[in-house]
């Protein structure tokens, strides 16, 4: 028996017998996609398996990319809770390597956010099956059988049986309607909302976790690629004699030239294949290549920034407007203008991209540290001229990703080389490759102008944003920010200002632009939250009080109602409103925890910023100390996060610590280009936070909430840079409007 529950609609759960127990299978696609799949007549394609064995072991097999957010632990926690499983008997398996698991995409925060209820229902359904099995065995009514901590007990008689003993019988019970089973109340939660330890931690601390870089296949060649230094450049002349002479080098292969749009295609260039990584790296160094650079060789990031700033000084296309900004500015008692710039950034995950491929005439198999197995499969199939069904993608552990590994270009490279060489090939990206040939976080210029009335209240706000759009990576003719990017901290401005106009300006991309942790929120929050502080200074008010005043009364901001294109991170505004009450609440909490109004140690100053992203509200206070030479450090950081219902408190804390430190890296790092070539190449010139720059302590307060679960991986990043710069202003009087923040400020 393996009839899915209610196949016409919510086809997400089935139960069946397996050799020694019960097997639950779940498909966690969003409901709409599930229905589409059913419409297309596709069979039930589960991507999560829960098996209960006769020895009581509960095995959760999860096909999810693990990149540091402990998604597999969270999923198991939720199921085990409603199942009333003993956590020590729960085993979590990575579904790598077996096509039966399907390879559905779901990004980390979303897979929990969108599936909390379904995961709970699945656990509850399994628990119900076990109770039914016990009732059946004893010939008693089900409601007399209680399932607690891996044991079902017949209340009146006190008889009991373990889950393992019941597993087989449970498999022959009729699966109840998952939506009809009452779920636990919050105070009954055993694991949800608690700090359960990551299931991968043992492997990690013993060096046994397998990442994309670590994949080894029989007869495998390692490839390292010399890519065109300028985007869309091609090889004019190649001399590979010296490269081929390197001991261990087995082949030199020219990659197909890249044509616009860049998409997720391979970048082109010349690959060196060898029996080991070292020989491949040496071989590549020995290549002599003359490049034809093309028109992007005119790209100089400094000039480009000046052009973007010039654009920001002219009227742009209106993205949102209410009141009459021009008139309000005209009549303002005080007018303040500021321009903010943020350079390109590189995601620079600790593990650079890596993928292995094995290709035969009619099939291909990929092993990769990818955030997106589904698009990997599609792009590999396209590049090889195969059907998607002929391509299998195995997801390894991810050594960080931050958006870089949502682009499958490196898997495409591996597939092309495996096909051409006839051998399994693993493509390794060195750090230089990662930093020079990435999908860069967009460079940004913004201009904000505000008018204050005689009481210092902000009555007019004119904000222009200019940046090359991620859409350009997919369609080279795109030169305006997309609605999807504007919604990230720009169009969803939460301030209660009577006259507001938000405009976007045009910018053409000259490098591949891509997602980086929290995406456009990084630069939008920097401008908006820095400027809020500038206004407080102009109004001679306390920055925290002024910020609360700008946010205004608790209300839900109705952007679609105001005619603004807004998709709210793909979730409904009814479940996830833009709630200024929650926004103000995290400001108050963080200020209180930081001791905002108390006296600080000599020389220490605070800065504050708040931002809603990924449906989550985060306020950050950064404490800085600046010495007489202008060097600064961060003794303390305070974060208050309201992410609705939280599955694992320690993981949320860890994400806020990491997200803050990532925000600090975003504030000190920069990628620049000269004649189309990226100037940086490794951690010596691309600065990232090191332990000596990291905050001395990071206090994370998680707001307890019954609201729907929201994102936790990204939202703590955007408020960090403005909170830091606001603190540095308080300490030095120096306003930093241009990132990166120098590690040593020049004090006047």
């Amino acid at each position, binding site marked *: 028996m393996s009839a899915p529950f209610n196949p016409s609609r919510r086809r997400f759960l089935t139960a069946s017998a397996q050799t020694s127990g019960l097997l639950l299978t779940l498909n966690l696609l969003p409901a709409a996609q599930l229905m589409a799949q059913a419409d297309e007549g596709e069979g039930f394609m589960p991507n999560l398996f829960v098996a209960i064995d006769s020895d009581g072991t509960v095995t959760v097999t999860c096909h999810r990319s*693990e990149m540091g957010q402990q998604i597999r632990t969270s999923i198991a926690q939720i199921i085990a809770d409603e199942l009333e499983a003993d956590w020590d008997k729960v085993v979590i398996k990575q579904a790598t390597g077996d096509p039966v698991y399907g390879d559905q995409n779901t990004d980390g925060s979303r897979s929990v956010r969108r599936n909390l209820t379904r995961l709970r229902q699945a656990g509850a359904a399994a628990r119900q099956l076990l109770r039914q099995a016990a009732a059946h065995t004893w010939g008693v009514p089900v409601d007399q059988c209680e399932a607690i901590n891996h044991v079902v007990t017949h209340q009146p008689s006190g008889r009991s049986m373990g889950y393992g003993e019941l597993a087989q019988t449970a498999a022959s019970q009729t699966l109840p309607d998952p939506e009809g089973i009452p779920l636990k109340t919050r105070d009954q939660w055993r694991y949800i909302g608690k700090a359960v330890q*990551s299931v991968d931690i043992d492997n*990690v601390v013993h060096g*046994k976790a397998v990442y994309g870089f670590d994949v080894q296949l029989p007869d495998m060649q390692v490839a390292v690629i010399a890519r065109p230094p300028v985007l869309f450049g091609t090889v004019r002349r190649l001399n590979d004699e010296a490269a081929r002479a390197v001991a261990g080098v087995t082949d030199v292969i020219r990659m197909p030239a890249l044509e616009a749009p860049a998409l997720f295609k391979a970048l082109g260039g010349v690959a060196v294949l060898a029996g080991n990584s070292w020989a491949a790296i040496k071989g590549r160094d020995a290549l002599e290549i003359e490049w034809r650079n093309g028109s992007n060789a005119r790209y100089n990031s400094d000039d480009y920034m000046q052009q973007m700033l010039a654009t920001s000084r002219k009227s742009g296309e209106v993205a949102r407007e209410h009141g009459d900004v021009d008139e309000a500015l005209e009549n303002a008692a005080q007018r303040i203008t500021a321009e903010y710039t943020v350079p390109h950034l590189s995601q620079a995950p600790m593990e*650079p991209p890596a993928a292995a491929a094995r290709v035969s005439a009619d099939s291909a198999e990929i092993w990769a540290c990818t955030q997106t197995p589904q698009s990997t499969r599609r792009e590999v199939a396209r590049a090889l001229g195969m059907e998607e069904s002929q391509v299998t993608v195995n997801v390894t552990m991810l050594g960080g990703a931050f958006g870089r590994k949502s682009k499958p270009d490196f898997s495409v490279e591996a597939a092309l080389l495996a096909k051409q060489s006839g051998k399994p090939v693993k493509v390794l990206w060195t*750090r230089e490759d990662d930093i020079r040939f990435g999908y860069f976080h967009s460079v940004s210029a913004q201009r904000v102008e505000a008018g204050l009335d005689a009481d210092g209240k902000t009555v007019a706000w004119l904000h222009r944003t200019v940046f090359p759009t991620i859409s350009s990576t997919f369609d080279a003719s795109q030169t305006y920010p997309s609605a999807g990017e504007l919604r990230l901290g720009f169009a969803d401005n939460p301030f209660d200002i009577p006259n507001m106009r938000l405009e976007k300006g045009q910018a053409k991309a000259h490098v591949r632009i891509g997602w980086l942790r929290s995406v456009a929120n990084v630069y939008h929050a920097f401008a908006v939250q820095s400027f809020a502080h500038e206004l407080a200074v102009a109004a001679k008010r306390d920055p925290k009080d002024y910020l609360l005043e700008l946010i205004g009364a608790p209300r839900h901001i109705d952007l679609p109602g105001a005619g603004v294109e807004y998709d709210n991170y793909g979730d409904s505004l009814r479940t996830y409103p833009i709630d200024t009450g929650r926004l103000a609440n995290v400001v108050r909490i963080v200020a209180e925890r930081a001791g905002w109004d108390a006296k600080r140690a000599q020389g220490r100053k605070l800065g504050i910023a708040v931002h809603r992203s990924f449906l989550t509200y985060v306020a950050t206070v950064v404490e800085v100390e600046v010495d007489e030479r202008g060097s600064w450090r961060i003794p303390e950081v305070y974060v208050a996060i309201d992410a609705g219902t939280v599955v694992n408190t320690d993981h949320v804390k860890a*994400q806020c610590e990491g997200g803050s430190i990532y925000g600090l890296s975003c504030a000190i790092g920069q990628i620049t280009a000269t004649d189309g070539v990226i100037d940086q190449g*490794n*951690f010596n010139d691309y600065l990232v936070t*090191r332990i000596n720059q990291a905050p001395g302590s990071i206090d994370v307060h998680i707001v307890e909430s019954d609201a729907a679960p929201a994102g936790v991986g990204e939202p703590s990043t955007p408020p960090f840079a403005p909170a830091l710069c606001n603190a540095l202003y308080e300490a030095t009087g120096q306003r930093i409007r241009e990132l990166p923040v120098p590690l040593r400020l020049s004090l006047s």
Partner: protein
Amino acid sequence: MKVTVNGKVIDYSGDPQMPILWFVRDELGMTGTKFGCGMALCGACTVHLDGQAIRSCVTPMSVAADKSITTIEGLGSEGEHALQKAWKTHNVPQCGYCQSGQIMQAASFLSQNPNPSDSEIETAMTGNICRCGTYTRIRAAIKTAAEDLA
């Protein structure tokens, strides 16, 4: 040349210039030692050479002749090292990729300085990057391990 890796003596006749990193990963198939930068800038590749933390990405095999290499796989061979325990107590890892290097660096440091101050910890660990930002937990875990070893 002869080299000892995690207590096992191995005959090596390959390229003496090959960095230890690629030898242990590609030739021995021990992938716990990670590549992060290849230029001694990130610490992901840290192993011990005769007990001293070194960056295996820039240390050629010739240097290891008649010496003993310890990798993360060989750390705490008699049960779990105090640092590995402390790493679990503090739930340090996020993606985990940098953590072999962090632990190996910390292990060699603690063996020389069993009772370090905060700033000594910072100085010792500055060469090890963690992009996931686990630094505050790394500091705490090193202190816990130091107490445990004391």
